[in-house]
């Protein structure tokens, strides 16, 4: 599973960073930055939750 993040859509709510800070961060502009594009194990589960919580639809899952 891979994560895709669209910075053009992101609204900087920060829900992903709260949910899994090992996978998601915010840049100096407040927009999403991916730290791990292919998380595994517990990180992958948390990343799925983050995708669901993302209010703007900037995050998506790509199943391998």
């Amino acid at each position, binding site marked *: 599973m891979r994560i895709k993040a669209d910075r053009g859509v992101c*609204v*900087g*709510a*920060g*829900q992903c*960073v*709260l*949910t899994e*800070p090992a996978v998601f*961060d*915010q840049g*100096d*502009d*407040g*927009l999403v930055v991916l730290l791990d594009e292919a998380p595994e194990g517990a990180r992958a589960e948390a990343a799925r*939750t983050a995708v*669901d*919580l993302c*209010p*703007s*639809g900037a995050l998506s899952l790509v199943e391998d």
Partner: protein
Amino acid sequence: MTETSAPTTEPTAFPQPRGCPFHTEAPYRDLREQQPVSRVTLPTGMRSWLLTRHEDVRAMLADPRFSADRRTPGFPLFAPGQFAVRDQAPSMITLDGSEHSAARRAVISEFSVKRIAALAPRIQEIVDGFVDDLLAGPKPADLVRALSLPVPSLVICEMLGVPYEDHDYFQSRTTRLIKRATPAEERLRVITELRGYLASLVDAKIAHPTDDVLGRQIERHRAERGAPDREVLTSLAVLLLVAGHETTANMISLGTLALLNHPDQLEQLRADPARTPLAVEEMLRYFTIAEFVTSRIALEDVELGGVTIRAGEGVVGEALSANRDDRAFTDPEALDLDRGRTNHVAFGFGPHQCLGQNLARKELQIVFDTLVRRVPTLALAADVVDLPYKDDATIYGVYELPVTW
């Protein structure tokens, strides 16, 4: 306005009074089960659609075919003259699409998780200061005046660069804006006064640069537009100041009440403060104080939950009902501080989801941790059902919370 799907009953009056949050009978359960997309009459007499299911509320708020432009005739109004100042530069909550995105992007970095985390030591100082004053004062005390209002008020003042000495001026006006009974003329006068106050402040900051959110926005305007736009900056200042204190204040009061009303769950937090962040999420879900700020107007015909909503019709995404939907939450009527992370919509959903949510979370976490640690004997000095709950306001809460220790 034309009816598009024949309603089976007369429109229900909305919102339902909430009263004591712990004795409310499963809010909106019947509508959610029987007529999840229904017609309602708002306190202003306007008709609107009401969405009561979590899935529909999220879908609507994320759908660009629904507009947040409060200036559009037909937008659901809950109080007379609610969005009366239509000719001023609109703030981001009123904008759609790329205009909204540009306005929001100008301030996102001020409210990022990292920036807010860096404010935590100062927020802790502020909370400790007001708790010191509370403990040094007479018992019983009103927690709303002693802690709930002053903490978020001082925090947002320092962030924006607004003199805290003026807090009575803008707090009393914000309270009147949020009361639904405030007549349209008074609402207009109050918002005009608030705008005037903040416009003078913006002018002072344009003349003498300051290192705060407003000062940095002025610099940004100079870099991007050549000169600061006073109207745009004033609208932003009004939005951040009003949204920044009344909401968090109500959650401080209600969250404290929740802990005092559930002593077993309070003890768990005292034993393990690492639980507090997710406990705060559950408080946000359970109380959902801004239950109909999540209103929109359809830009085109949209089918939702088997009903066609026509262009120009108003829609209220009922956030409290969504957060009590058993399709989305197990045992939703129970306050369970151990529930874990959920996809509640207490901060809304879609591109307009609360800009200040991470600031609110941090303030709430610090307040509850501090109260639990420093005031272990804190107790309610009134009966929970008799408290003056804000059933007459656009943001739910409690006017007074008598406590002792």
